[in-house]
Structure formats: structure tokens, C-alpha cells
């Protein structure tokens, strides 16, 4: 990537996630909590991932060894909130940007024209397109939350690190007379991190030494997915298993040679 393409913003706050893969049991509580919090409609057939709206997905990893040497792990994948988001630079209508303090890549639904360039550009498959209007079974729409508007057919959507929770946390801080730019670690946590029963998902300001993610992201066991692409994800993963870390950058064979 040329230097001119690097649009890395230097924000005072850089919200980030560190997911400890060695603690993830793949229970799916994070996926359900995300869906409920962000008004993602249920789908009787969600197994076609190309058609089903989802913001957070859990992948099952394998070390590809034969029984009994086989090992497995689970990898939850939210939006990476890249430092250099490839989605933002291709959006023709500025519906997705990375210009707000905190470094969360925005998605403005009323601006989206559904061209799906961003989906093609995103190397993490974090973005989903609404092929159909959202439908909740009769009565279930009563459980819609007031936090995120519902999205119609023809619009791309993605994880926002539960951005509305940050807005609420800032408001609360202002009410208490505290600095909204220096929030306590527990003041703003996305729904997935809040419910995770093993505490595998950590969240906080990667720039703030008082937040655990600041330390965890610098762990020798930390890695980011497809780091070689230069997208600078704000989601880090932790694993003490070498094979898991190695799969974080899953290049083609010729690229491995070039980089070695």
C-alpha cells in the first residue's frame, strides 16, 4: 500500500477490543446480545451468511491436524474498526467514514445507496447487505431497542462497537461533571463484551494505560487479522497457541515467500 493511501487518523481516544481466543467457548451469547441490542431481525434460515444480516459472527478454527493431534478454537469477528478502513475510501456517498473521535468507523444508513463497494473492499467480510426488508414475527417487534434505527432493504450495515452506548456514557459523564473524553473502563462496553460469560472479550481505549486493552494489545500473544494488509484493525486477538496466531495472517503461498 502506498503512503498516500494511508489515512490513519490519530484520535485522542481509540476504542478497541481484545478477544482472548483461548477463553472463547463459542457459546454464542455475544452474537445474540449483539442482535438484540442493535435491532438485527431474526431469520428462520440464517445459515446462508451471504443473505443474512449479522454484525458479529463466530468462526470455528482448526489446526488442520489429524485426530488425535487436532485442536480447535473459536474466533468471534466484529467489525475491525480499521485505522485505514478500506470500506470508507471506496464509499461514493460518504455513508461510511472514519472521522469521529474514538476511531469507530461510522455507517450512516440514510446515505447508503446500496452499491456494496464497501462490502467488496472489506477484507474481513464484516459488512452485510439487507437483501430484504427486516421482519420481526408479530409481537416480537415490541422488543426493538431505542438505540439503533431499523434498516430497510438496500442498505449496508455493520458493527459499530455499540456506538450508542458511548453516546450514553458521555452524557452520563457530563451529568456527573466528569470529562467525557476520559471515561472509566466500565462506563462504555459494547453488548457482546458485557455479556461474555468467560470474559474473553475485553474493551476499552487502546490509548489509555488505565484500560486493560492497552496492556493486552501489547502482549506477545496478541495479533490482528490480516495485519499485512495495513488496515490497522482496532480489534486484537490473544492466543497462546502458535497455530491460532499463525492463521491470523492467512496469506497466499507466494506472498509468504515475498514477505519472508
Amino acid at each position, binding site marked *: 500500500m502506498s503512503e498516500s493511501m494511508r489515512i490513519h487518523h490519530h484520535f485522542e481516544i481509540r476504542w478497541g477490543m481484545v478477544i482472548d481466543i483461548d477463553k472463547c467457548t463459542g457459546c454464542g451469547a455475544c452474537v445474540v446480545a449483539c442482535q438484540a441490542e442493535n435491532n438485527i431481525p431474526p431469520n428462520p434460515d440464517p445459515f446462508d451468511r451471504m443473505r443474512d444480516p449479522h454484525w458479529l459472527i463466530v468462526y470455528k478454527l482448526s489446526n488442520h491436524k489429524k485426530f488425535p493431534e487436532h485442536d480447535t478454537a473459536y474466533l468471534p469477528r466484529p467489525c475491525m474498526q480499521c485505522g485505514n478502513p478500506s470500506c470508507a475510501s471506496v464509499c461514493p456517498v460518504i455513508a461510511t467514514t472514519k472521522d469521529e473521535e474514538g476511531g469507530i468507523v461510522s455507517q450512516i444508513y440514510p446515505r447508503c445507496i446500496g452499491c456494496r463497494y464497501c462490502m467488496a473492499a472489506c477484507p474481513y467480510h464484516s459488512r452485510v447487505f439487507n437483501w430484504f426488508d427486516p421482519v420481526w414475527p408479530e409481537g416480537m417487534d415490541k422488543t426493538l*431497542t431505542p438505540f439503533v434505527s431499523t434498516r430497510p432493504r438496500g442498505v449496508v450495515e455493520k458493527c459499530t462497537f455499540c456506538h450508542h452506548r458511548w453516546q450514553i456514557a458521555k452524557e452520563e459523564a457530563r451529568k456527573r461533571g466528569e470529562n467525557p473524553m476520559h471515561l472509566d473502563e466500565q462506563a462504555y462496553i459494547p453488548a457482546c463484551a458485557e455479556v461474555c460469560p468467560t470474559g474473553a472479550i475485553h474493551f476499552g481505549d487502546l490509548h489509555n494505560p488505565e484500560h486493560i486493552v492497552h496492556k493486552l494489545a501489547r502482549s506477545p500473544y496478541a495479533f490482528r487479522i490480516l495485519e499485512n494488509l495495513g488496515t490497522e484493525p482496532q480489534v486484537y486477538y490473544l492466543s497462546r497457541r502458535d497455530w491460532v496466531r499463525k492463521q491470523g495472517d492467512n496469506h497466499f503461498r507466494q506472498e509468504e515467500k515475498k514477505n519472508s
Partner: protein
Amino acid sequence: MALDRRGFLMFLAGGAAGSVLTPTAWKLTDDISIWTQNWPWIPRIPTGALDEKPSVLKLGSAEYGLKIKRVNKQPITASGNPNHPLSLGGIDALGAASVQLMYSPSRIQQPMIKNDQGQFKPIAWSKALELLAGLLKPLQGQTDALACVSGDSTGSSREVFSKFLRAMGSPHVYLQPADGLAQNRVWNDLMQGQGRLGFDLENSDLLLVLEPDLLDTWGATVKNQKVFGRGKTELIYAGALQNSTAAVARSWLPIHPGSSGHLALALAYCLFKQGLEPRPVPKGFREYREFVRTHYTPDQAARKTGLSAQAIQNLAQKLQQASRPLIISGSTTGEGAPGFPFFAGLSLNLLLKRINTSGGITCLPGPETVLDPAGGPSIENSQDFCGYIQDCATGKIKSPEILFVHEANPAYALPDTRKTTDFFDTVPFTVNFSQFMDETAARSDLLLPNPYFLERLDDSFTPFGSAMNNYSLSLPVTQSGVDAKPTSDLLIALASTLDHDLGVRSYAELLRKKCRRLGADWGRLTSGETWTSGKTLSQSGLTLWNQPIASMCRAQMTGTPQATPGLVLEANRKTGSSRTGLPPFGLKAHLEEELSGALAAVRINRQTAEQMNVRNGQAVTLTTQAGSIQARILLDEGVVTNTVAVPTGFGHTALDMFSQNKGGNANSLLSLSCEPGSGLCSGTAFEVQVSIAS
């Protein structure tokens, strides 16, 4: 006026500049963008005051505290209650999906009765009660005329059912099979232990899990996950597949399906070799040791379990070196197993002196009863429902005239679906108190819907797996959106109609009395706090060998080595519980490869696939003595060779579109068998045939 070339170019330039500078075009584009997304059929989000209310999850799975977020008093989301000892702020997929499940299309909207054409028609509550009282009246005093199965093992409703049936003269009150029920029966009936078993995972430094999925379906799963997440306990998993627990355990020890009891006794052999002797010496210790020494040398155990003799010895050494080891045994699904693996695991804990010690097994006093303080037949120690069905099928007990089904879906969840449905066909009148139109409700004659747990007052006393006794209230957070009545109150009223006094006028009164008996504060309980007690029962007369134990263990010696592929069931909370079916908001949590079309994936490793001559993605039929299901092959090296891993929770024929037409019901592959010695009846299927689907 003539238009010359210059004029034309000026017009074009002016038009272009005007188009760029005027806001009209941009405003129109913006409006088009907004209004083409603003259709009336797109649901609107609510506005209003936000608050949070505590409750306790009661859906036939692990029970723990919830925080329910509401907008204008309408529940919207659930998260874990940090103040509840079994949640500590964590939640599982079913709990997280529980608010939306309240609006499942399969909710029963009102009391209904089946007509002669087999269709359900609405009926008024008063008429339904009158009808039921009329049917029950002539059955009073007949021992076998009325039976009840309940899926609620922690609520006081079981007391109400127990008392009601006793008043009617029937002892047939049963719980749906579960690991907790089986484990406590082995402890109380076979090993002569006192109280109910708790497991202090929190203070253990080494957890050896023998088959159950500790972090997804066994015991207090959310608390188990919290304990694991703290990273202070080493976790070793022995089982036939890499499930949620194995995926994060320090090591996975692959063993043949259903051989964990053998592994436990092989470890006991190694510990004896190292000179270990329990103090005080339990009754029957010498006979137990003799049995273990005769049948469980490492080489013999290696053949039984598939684990090498060296690996067994290393594991035994690790157990002895740990300061606070704890062995967890059970079934892979948490829905009951024969007594042998429970006994083997408990005996190992006993040898390692892990009873009533920190990080070991705690023996907890049983629940305080209000309606029958003097005791009476305890629902917990009574025969399980599988055994009852078996006895009815063999004519040992007369089939009931009326069957009550409460918070349970036995027609789907019990092993040997064919035998279970045959049983239901013999019952002339089934009354169902379910919230959902599940498989059992669809077979019932009268539906008297109980409100959803978020719509009613209920309680939860020490769910299985908890290290200490605890009591909390499941509080209503909203009014019922359907025409439902609390079942316990209904039974109290019904008893009154039949001239029986159950001792309380309402269920709320019963809960208040229970609260007083426990010494808990009602005000604090209703604010979402939990009563806890660290009291344990000291043990005397523990037994390692007697006639029933000998029968149970010797029956294990008659088994033949695996000739055809073995079967191992896997379960997880994403598929809900047997009562709920697949929760609408739980489906997205499944892995993409778990379901393809209407076929669920069954996992086998590459070597097994070669032996069977099947390939990845191929549609197959699994057949056992009990039945068959269709499935799709998924190659996975996380399954032991010569074994097929079959997911449970799929294959619903009732409930809603989120549950139907997804995979086959794994329970239909299991045969119902009763174990010699323990008398525990459970589903077994150690042999399965795999053929390519036509």
C-alpha cells in the same frame, strides 16, 4: 432571438454552474435517499424511559439471575445479573435470547381444548377448570390414575404438584431426566450419601471433566464459565469429541463415547498403586478396591477407553499432585445418563478426599418444603419419568387416565421417541401447562398455558451444580401478553374445587412461607437479591460397594468392544432447551456449517469417513435399533475414530418456523434402557449404522 455558438456555450456553462450551486438537486437526492428508506412497513423503534429489572432465567436449562432492560416497562434485552451468584454478570445464548422468545410465534395464546377432529379450539378458563375437575373427581383415591411430569427441578411448583397428586392419592410425580437428578440418586440411594451434591469449581485447582460439556450444558454453566474465565483452574477434558469445554481446556483426552466411568476407575487403580487410601474408610472399600484391581489395570482400561495406559498413569499422577482436584462426571448433553459414570466419578472424588472440602464436592441440605414439612415422598429421589414410561410399557404400572405435563417436552426430549409417543397414545387425557406449542403440547388434549417466566412470580432453589444453597425469585417484569394463568395458582384453585386443602391460598403465599422458613428477607428477594447458605451436611456411612453398586458395575463388564461406529451426542444452549426449541434470536449464533438446508451436520473424522465410504457434505441416514434420522456429513478431526457426533436440539416437528424443518431429533436414535443396580433409565445407543441417503 438567435442562439449563436457563444450563447449556447454560455447557456451550458451557466446551467452546469447553476446545477452545482443550487441546493435543489442535492436536497432532492438526499430526500429521495431518506424517503426511499422510510417505508411504513419498516418497524419503528420505541422511545421512552429506560429501566432495568432483575429476574431469574427459568427455561429448563441452567438457572441464573438476569437483568431485563425495559423501555416504557416493555422488556427489550436481557443481560446477566452481576449480583446473582450463578451469573456474576454472565449470560448464555438462551438467556440472552429469552426476552424475544416471549413473543415466539409458537406461544399458546389462550386455554385450548382438542376437539374430535384433533384440532385445538379456545375454551374459557372457567369451563376448562370445570371440565378438568369433572374428570379428576372420579379418579380420587386411585393410585395409578393420575401422573405428572415436570421439567422444573428448582421451583416450588413441584411442591404444589406433589401435594396435589398426593391429595388425589397418586404417588406418580416425576421430573424430566437430567444429570442432577441421576447424580443425586446415585449419591443418596447407592452411596448412602446425605443431601444434594454441589461442586465447588471456584476453589479447585484442577478440574478433570469426564465427558459432560462443563462450559455449555452441565450444571450452573454460566458460573462454570465465569470460574474458567478467571484462569485460576486447570481444565482437562476427557471425551469423545472436542466440544466447547475441550476447545479451551488445557488438554483434550480422546476416549471412546460412554467410557468415562471406566477411565475414572482406571485412575482409581493407579491411585491405589500409589498407596492412596481414603480416611475414613467408606463401607465396602475393600470390595470396591478388589473390583478395580481386577478389572482396571491400565492395559485393560486402555482397551475400554481408547486412551493409552501411559496417558492414564500420567493423568493419575497429575490428580495426585494437585492440591484441590475435582472430578466432574455426567452425560454429554446434561440430560441424564446411567448411574455408572456418576458413581465412578464420585468414588474417585471420595478416594481423593474431596467431599465437603474447599474446591471439592459439597453436600448441601435439601430444599425446605412448606406444604409438607414432615417429608413425604420426595420428588427428587423418586423414579425418573423414563422409568415410569418403561414400567407402563411393560405393564408393571397401569398407564394413567390423566397426565399433567408441566414445563416439559417429553415427547421430544426423552430417548426412544417411538416408545415415548406410544406412551402418550395410551394416555386418554393429557393436560399441558406449557407456554409453547411444542411436540408434547401438540399431542395433549387440554392446554392451560402458564405465563412465561418474565410474566409470573416463581422461585429457584439451588440449581444443580451450585456449590452452595441459594434461593432467588424469578420476578415478573411485564404483564402477560397472552391469556395465561399461573399453573400453581390454578392447581391450588382446582384442589379447592375438589375439596382438598393444599395449605396455602396462593402461590405467592407459599413463596413467602418458604422465604420465612429459609430465614431470607422477602423485601431483599423481591429487589433481586439472592439468599445463600454455606451450610453443608457431614457424611457418615458413605458406601463404595453394596449389592446394587456391584450389579451396576458388573453389568459394565459384559459390554463388547466397539464393532460398528459409536454415537456421541452433543448439545449446546444455542439450540435452546427441549421446551423452547431453537430460540429465534439464537439461530444466528450457530456456525454456518452446522445446518445445510434441512439437514444438520453430524461430525466424523476422516478415517471414520474412509471406513464408512462417505465424504464431506454427503447426505446420510443414521440408523440405530431405536430409529433413524437424516443428516449431512461434516468431516472434523475433533471426533474420535469410529464415532459419529450427533447434535441435539434439532428435528422439532412442532413449535415455530425457527425450530421446524431443521435436522433430525437425535433422541430418536436412543434406546430406553434401565440400568441394573441403580434402576436409572436413560437413553443409550452405542452402535449406529451410517448409509448414504437415497
